[in-house]
């Protein structure tokens, strides 16, 4: 078994109104920033999956990303593998 550390990055779908992104854009003049546009605000989750393979781990992450971490009606997500380490489980048969 190995531990796979993933990041799931969730963003509003293109074309969907993002009030938070809009609010950030509206605040830019207060920072004297004039060359920034198209701000989109999302969320990021990091999690570790213990599995026999990266493929198996990704299946779990995909399911979580689709059902819980994002709402496919309004958001898109991207899964990023951060780290893979073999886990040393006491008593576990190798």
């Amino acid at each position, binding site marked *: 078994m190995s531990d796979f550390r993933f990041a799931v990055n969730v963003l509003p779908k293109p074309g969907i*109104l993002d009030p938070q992104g809009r*609010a950030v854009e509206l605040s830019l003049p207060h920072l004297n920033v004039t060359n920034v546009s198209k701000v989109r605000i999302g969320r990021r989750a990091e999690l570790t999956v213990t599995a026999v393979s990266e493929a198996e781990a990704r299946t779990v992450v995909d399911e979580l990303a689709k059902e819980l971490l994002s*709402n496919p*009606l309004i958001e898109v997500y991207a899964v990023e593998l951060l780290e893979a380490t073999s886990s040393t489980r006491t008593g576990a048969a190798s």
Partner: protein
Amino acid sequence: MRIGVVTFPGSNSDVDSLNALAVAGVDPVSLWHESPDLQGVSAVILPGGFAYGDYVRAGVIARFSPVMKGVKAFAEAGGYVLGICNGFQVLAESRLVPGVLMRNRSLRFASKIVAIAPQRLDSPFTRAANGRPIHIPIAHGEGCYYADEATLDQLERDGQVLFRYCREDGTYSTDPDDPSNPNGSLRAIAGVCNAAGNVAGLMPHPERMAEPILGTDEGMQLIRSLVESAAAWEATR
């Protein structure tokens, strides 16, 4: 007759909903989120509040709670389920009603009395409404109704839009920034039902206008509608 109200950790309109049911003359039954057993009730209300702290997205964690297994089975059997505010968010995240409740367009938490117009009076959730605008409170940060254009067209065509935010004369504006629209909801939608018509959600709180001492009892039109429908359904079982 007994009608259940689910309490999730973070629900805050459960007691108001139980009270409104008592005002309507039915036995209110408190249902706990950890049990899928609906105790044989004739209808279910998912109340307002902040289930599971609204973490990740409002309603999504509640979707996976044991009680929602019972609610889903109850809805599939034709039982009436009404989601109010956070309860609407739970139903939408559970895909039991169409659409999504997004962050209010203003980014502000909206807490005020609004006018909503029932879009049909022959639905199980509006049958006791008098057809005039209903004035009841909203209190939410994520109430901006969204669905893609094709879905919105389909909902309108099939009579699944039950309530719209409206002006005093009952008309509404499709401009999401119109003053009569408190949160930017597309096509001023305040409440919808599923295709079968037995599961509905709305953002405003009918249970908070259930007695004159609370201001008015205008919200009772919707509570009574649910009670009448539940009684009719119970009679057919």
